[in-house]
């Protein structure tokens, strides 16, 4: 409601107030319509030319020069005695102005940079086009390129080292840039627009625990399933190591699961899960089984997967993905009671026998005494035999050599 009243208030109250006994635009354009008009400050040349036709066609076309350049209202000497002040867009766009004022764009660039981020950096200055228009830099189709104009450069993203430019080749970026799809997520859908904050700020939409909500704006079902999963439960409890969407899918690098570049493709998913589930620090801290990656890799499925067979079961085939639950949960696809059905997806003759044994474990005395003892027996047996063989060979040769020496000396 506030917004709508603003739009009425601006023309009704503000414009007549400003135009009261003031310099007409023609006065300004006497100089500023010259296309070669420029100033040089600190060795940097800035054009001072204003394209009146474009300005008239822009969203602010009805405005007069002094509507924005408030400080020049009483100016009567040209060139200006003092450099005109930067235009304060927030005098009208107060909500956006407040958001911008707390954003990283404002803070980081005001502090130590000459090319400070202002409203104009994204929206343009005299020629501002409404975001709905396809020729606007802030249109959904163009905003990716707008952000990447700065963020493709690693130096701009100070200290983060995040490869933002990978967005262009991500599933979201390809939808936008190649297919021209305007629904696919662009920069501001995840990061916000005026109030861009770093990911470690809890108020940021890309803060770790806010990520599921942010992605869930579009991926609603995935978000609900995730929140019910053991990962979602842990995240909700405030466990920072619990994975959110981006831990498995990546951020700017997100690909569809069938892409070989994807971190969740059949051949990459074991490694992705393994980041945590192979990790002894995490698995010991939370009392969950470790070495899930290496034991999977040496299983039938794992070996075939490593050799490029994508039809074999990977982690997600049995455990699910967004809705993952621990095997102790009766609703889990890998709960012993559900194993026959889960294995049955691929093995139609799967019986209860499939649950009678351990899946990808490092055999220990406790969990697999049979395998443990047989393996130990063979190690000792083979090792013992080898030692006996070598002793036999030494004895065989030493006897042979001794007898030959005796024969020669007796001759």
């Amino acid at each position, binding site marked *: 409601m506030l917004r709508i009243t603003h739009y009425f208030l601006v023309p009704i109250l503000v414009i007549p107030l400003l135009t009261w006994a003031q310099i007409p635009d023609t006065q300004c354009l006497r100089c500023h319509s010259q296309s070669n008009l420029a100033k040089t400050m600190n060795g940097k040349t800035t054009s001072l030319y204003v394209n009146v036709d474009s300005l008239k066609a822009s969203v602010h076309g009805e405005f007069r020069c002094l509507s924005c350049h408030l400080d020049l209202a009483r100016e009567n000497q040209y060139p200006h005695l003092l450099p005109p002040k930067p235009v304060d867009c927030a005098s009208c766009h107060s909500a956006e102005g407040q958001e911008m004022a707390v954003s990283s764009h404002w803070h980081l660039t005001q502090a130590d940079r000459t090319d400070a981020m202002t409203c104009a950096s994204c929206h343009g200055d005299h020629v501002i086009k409404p975001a709905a228009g396809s020729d606007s830099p802030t249109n959904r189709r163009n905003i990716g390129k707008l952000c990447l104009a700065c963020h493709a450069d690693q130096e701009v993203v100070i200290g983060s080292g995040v490869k933002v430019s990978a967005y262009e080749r991500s599933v979201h970026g390809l939808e936008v840039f190649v297919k021209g799809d305007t629904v696919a997520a662009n920069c501001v859908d995840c990061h916000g627009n005026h109030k861009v904050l770093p990911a470690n700020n809890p108020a940021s939409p890309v803060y770790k625990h806010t990520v599921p909500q942010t992605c869930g704006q579009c991926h609603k079902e995935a978000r609900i399933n995730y929140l019910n999963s053991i990962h979602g439960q842990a995240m909700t409890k405030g466990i920072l190591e619990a994975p959110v969407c981006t831990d498995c899918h990546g951020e700017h690098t997100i690909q569809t699961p069938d892409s070989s570049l994807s971190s969740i493709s059949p051949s990459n998913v074991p490694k992705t899960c393994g980041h945590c589930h192979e990790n002894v620090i995490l698995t010991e801290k939370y009392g969950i089984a470790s070495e899930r990656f290496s034991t999977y890799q040496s299983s039938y499925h794992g070996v075939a997967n490593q050799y490029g067979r994508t039809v074999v079961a990977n982690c997600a085939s049995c455990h699910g993905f967004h809705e993952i639950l621990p095997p102790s949960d009766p609703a889990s696809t890998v709960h012993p009671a559900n194993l026959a059905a889960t294995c049955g997806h691929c093995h139609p*003759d799967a019986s209860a*026998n499939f649950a009678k044994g351990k899946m990808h474990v490092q055999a220990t005395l406790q969990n697999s005494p049979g*395998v443990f003892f047989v393996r130990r027996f063979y190690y000792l047996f083979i090792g013992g035999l080898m030692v006996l063989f070598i002793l036999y060979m030494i*004895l065989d040769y030493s*006897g042979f050599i*001794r007898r030959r020496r005796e024969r020669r000396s007796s001759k």
Partner: protein
Amino acid sequence: MKPAILRFTLTERVQHIILLSSLIILVLTGLSLMFHNTGWGRFMISLEGGLAGRGLIHRLAALMLIGVSLYHYFYTLLSRHGHNLLMDFLPEKRDWGKFVKTFKFNLGMIDSPPEWSKFTFFQKLQYFGVVAGVIIMILTGIVLWLGPQAIALMPKWLVDLTLVVHGSEGLLIFLLLLFWHLYNVHLAPGNFPMNMSWLTGRISVDELRNRYPLEYKRMVERKELGE
């Protein structure tokens, strides 16, 4: 030079060649799977036509092994030669004494080596070792060949165990053949570079007298040596 005498018949030599060919293929394709995560394992699997090719070759060689094993079983059961061969391989009580004597002789504690009949005690142990090993490998191999169907028939832990036994027993047979058998027929004193009897089937009378004196005496008694 006295004429050489027949130690292994043609069919025995052919059986041996089929056995060793199948075992070499089985060992190569088996170990490359066992060590699939090493560089040479990956290299071997690529040579064997990838994972599918490796499996096919391994199974074809397994059929070869099963075939020659069945043939050998009936050979020892039904043919006179085969029966005699099996009888010659059976360990005797006195073999234990000779076994100890072998070490005493090599240590210089006694002056004359033990007198063996057609096969030494070591050769007999090796024969039955291979028989036991091949039976274990064929039985576990059939279970693994069934794949997931095997788990439909028996608990998964038993199939897991079968896999461990198959791999470990295979490794054992490989090391046994490499360290023991190849040592004995190639490197052992008097055999270098190779004891040729596996190809010719023959052994000279001198060698027979020196190595297997009881067999020599038996042949002399039966006048099988001619003149």
